[in-house]
């Protein structure tokens, strides 16, 4: 092959770095999108045998949002290969031990199970918070779009916008708005659950 053409091929197969913010993102939908970038399926030159995947940095994995009841329902199985060595952990238990593990497991199972998978996983860099090493952040040349809109709390809106929000009706002045008792009752259930888990 001619020297000039050889160098052009380097440019085509150059590896780039991407960053993804997992704040309030569903890990299942995120995994589907991140796998595209790890496998190189976001490039028109994709071929399953040519190793054209990119590096992906994922930040804020501690703040992912599981859909529906999945914090309790999603289970992580592990067996030590010894008698009685079977373990089951719920998502919230796994997440408390290692905040990057749920996303990592999900991406691992979404990738195609072949000999390339180990190499692709090595190009995935997960961080529980936003503290990415500076040298790694300097490589980043583009960002992956989030999979779902990040919800805003009431406090995030400025007061003017809150005041001008259209209302169907106005509360009468003597009306007492419901206190936070319902929320406290839910919180008690949660605390019970947490204390049970500590016993285990």
């Amino acid at each position, binding site marked *: 092959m001619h020297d000039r053409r050889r160098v052009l091929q380097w440019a085509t197969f150059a590896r780039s770095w991407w960053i993804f913010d997992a704040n309030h993102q569903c890990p299942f939908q995120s995994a589907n999108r991140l796998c*595209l970038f790890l496998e190189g*399926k*976001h*490039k*028109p*030159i*994709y*071929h*399953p045998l040519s190793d054209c995947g990119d590096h992906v940095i994922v930040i804020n994995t501690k703040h992912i949002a599981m859909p529906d009841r999945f914090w309790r329902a999603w289970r992580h199985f592990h067996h030590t290969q010894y008698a009685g060595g079977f373990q089951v952990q719920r998502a919230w238990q796994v997440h408390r031990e290692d905040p990057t593990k749920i996303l990592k497991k999900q991406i691992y199972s979404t990738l195609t199970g072949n000999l390339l998978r180990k190499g692709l996983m090595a190009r995935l860099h997960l961080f529980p918070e936003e503290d990415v090493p500076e040298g790694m952040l300097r490589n980043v040349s583009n960002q992956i779009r989030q999979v779902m809109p990040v919800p805003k709390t009431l406090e995030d809106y400025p007061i003017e916008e809150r005041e001008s929000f259209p209302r169907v009706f106005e509360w009468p002045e003597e009306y007492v708005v419901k206190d936070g008792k319902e929320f406290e009752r839910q919180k008690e259930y949660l605390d019970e659950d947490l204390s049970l888990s500590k016993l285990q």
Partner: protein
Amino acid sequence: MVQLSACLLRKIPGPPRIYKRLQTFRLNARYEGRSRNCYVVGQGYQLKSMQYTRVARKNKVLDFKELYNLRLEAAAEEHGIPFRYLWDGLRRMNILLNRKVLQDIAIYEPRTFAGFCELSKQHQVDQGLNLPPHSYPKIPVNTKGML
């Protein structure tokens, strides 16, 4: 059956048997063991290999179609348009390029492919069809109603 004389009644010998055998040996030349040296053993291998190739001829087409779809989805997504919208737009504009040629263009002539994407977006807007909100053309293309 035409028999004009007694001498034509005799059994006419066909081509030598070795030519039929040589063909099998030639096809099985890459195999190991007796399958390439013995005709009787090699016959079965030859038959099976031909069955495999018959299936593979169809699967090859499907595999390539799957690969082209993956590549084209990636290529179209770079220009902010889902591939199914691009495909639909090109059909409507009577640009009848198949998947193989389109993916070749996406790799080797990327600016032409970008033009296809912008045209397709504009054409769908002109027709009053709904695009995804991020897929509208960045700079309006004046098609003068020619597409």
